[in-house]
């Protein structure tokens, strides 16, 4: 268990991690028409799906301490995201008949420059269907997504454990886990939607120039999470002191 004030800071840190993680997860709504690189859905909702899977996985280890909860959340989230990437690429390869390719890298607009995948060294130019901005998830974006999911899952699990610690003295154990899960899911959804204003529906993860706008997400998530954390702290303190139960 952690002190309520430290738990409040953990909620803020978790919220910021969740917001920042969305920048690393490659997603694009037009990916559903194989017209842009990234997982074929909005970055916010995809991150929410991955993060909630992380919280689900972390809940099994809630009695085993903070470190295990955070790591379980992180790897659970990464597992969900990488399975989604693999199956998305299977769909692209055998359902559409096209290879995964990074549109930003192919046009030389990637964060690190050049037209090659920075990890595998595969040339991207010429592999995108004409008239599209790439399709699927090439290896570099898959790694970026895995990294983002690790961050998001860890952030969600951090909030989950913090709320669990704060409310445990006031409520019975079986209810407090569910309550902490609801609050953590709420904090996750708030913070995963905020980056949508910076990403405007599409990102290729850390290889997209939009990663340079991450400070905006950081500040907005910091402010929002601070307000949310203060509200949670106040409600929990009132509950523990039996003013409200």
């Amino acid at each position, binding site marked *: 268990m952690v002190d309520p004030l430290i738990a409040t800071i953990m909620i803020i840190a978790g919220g910021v991690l969740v917001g920042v993680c969305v920048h690393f997860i490659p997603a694009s709504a037009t990916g559903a*028409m194989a017209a842009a690189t990234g997982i074929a859905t*909005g970055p916010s909702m995809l991150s929410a*799906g991955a993060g909630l899977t992380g919280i689900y996985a972390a809940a*099994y280890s809630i009695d085993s301490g903070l470190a295990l909860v955070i790591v379980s959340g992180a790897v659970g989230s990464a597992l969900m995201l990488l399975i*989604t990437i693999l*199956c998305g*690429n299977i769909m692209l390869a055998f359902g559409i008949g096209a290879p995964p390719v990074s549109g930003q890298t192919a046009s030389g607009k990637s964060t690190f420059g050049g037209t090659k995948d920075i990890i595998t060294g*595969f040339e991207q130019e010429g592999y995108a269907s004409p*008239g599209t901005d790439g399709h699927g*998830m090439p290896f570099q974006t898959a790694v970026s997504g895995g990294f983002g999911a690790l961050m998001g899952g860890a952030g969600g699990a951090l909030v989950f454990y913090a709320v669990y610690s704060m409310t445990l003295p006031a409520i019975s154990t079986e209810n407090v886990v569910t309550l902490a899960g609801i609050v953590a899911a709420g904090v996750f959804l708030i913070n995963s939607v905020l980056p949508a204003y910076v990403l405007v529906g599409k990102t290729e993860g850390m290889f997209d120039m939009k990663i340079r706008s991450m400070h905006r997400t950081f500040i907005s998530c910091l402010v929002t999470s601070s307000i949310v954390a203060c509200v949670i702290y106040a409600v929990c303190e009132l509950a523990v002191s039996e003013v409200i139960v």
Partner: protein
Amino acid sequence: MAAISLLLGTALAGFLAFLAGVFEDSESNAGSASNPNSQVQLAPQIGNRHRYFNKAISGEPPANALWATTAATIAYLLTAHFGGDAFSVLVASIIGAAASTLLLCAYGVLSHISRIASMKNFEQTLYWDSLLTPLPLDAAFGFLTALMLTLLAFSAHSLLGNPFSVPLLAFFFGITIGAIGSSTGDIYYGAERLYQHYIFGSGIPISVQGDIDVKGEYGYRNSVDTPYFTMRFGGLVTGLAFGILIFLDAWSRLFTFAGVWTSVIVVSVLVLIILIFIYLLEVYTRKRYGRYTED
């Protein structure tokens, strides 16, 4: 006994998740929900009058979370009142899923009518057959999705021992299956089924978006035929993704060789193996399809 319950729970949860994935993708495609909905919405604006069921109540994750949570909450309340043996859980889940399907039908009808009405300026007609024919099919898939997710939530809570309550688990599964369904199955509907008159082997250029197939093999294409087509590949891969996720997550908890850290170690190894598969698939597709040439 605990080990048997865990083994049974792992197998059952994986199977239920697989079925839920197949049904969820089919429900989404029968109603043109989620991302490819933009294409159906765009079609009248470039002169393509269509007969698709255009039901996008919200993004796929929140919509599925709503159906699953509604069904699971009703089922949970019923089992709390009438007892929680396996038969009661099944009957309660069917009643819960039926109630959430009524909600889906109500939202689906209103959503379709209002979306088509908003296209009045582009001379899109509100065809009653394009609403009334696919609606029962869509509702049936919605019912099955909600039922599978409710049963999955009960399995995860009772057999796998997740400490979250059943409705919250259903909410989590609803969000996750929506995210997976719109990330995998949607590609097959959005880039292949809606654009079958374009050559296979290419993404859909942004300049032709909205130019969807309005005529099918026989007469006008409708949303009843869509799941028949997409279930053979898109639905299966969606089911595979969600089924593998739930199965592997539960499977990782069957081992105890490193104490409480066992599951984390197993999942980390699985993550690395999946990364290798992603790499191998990319190598295969690059060799198989190659570069796009001018012709």
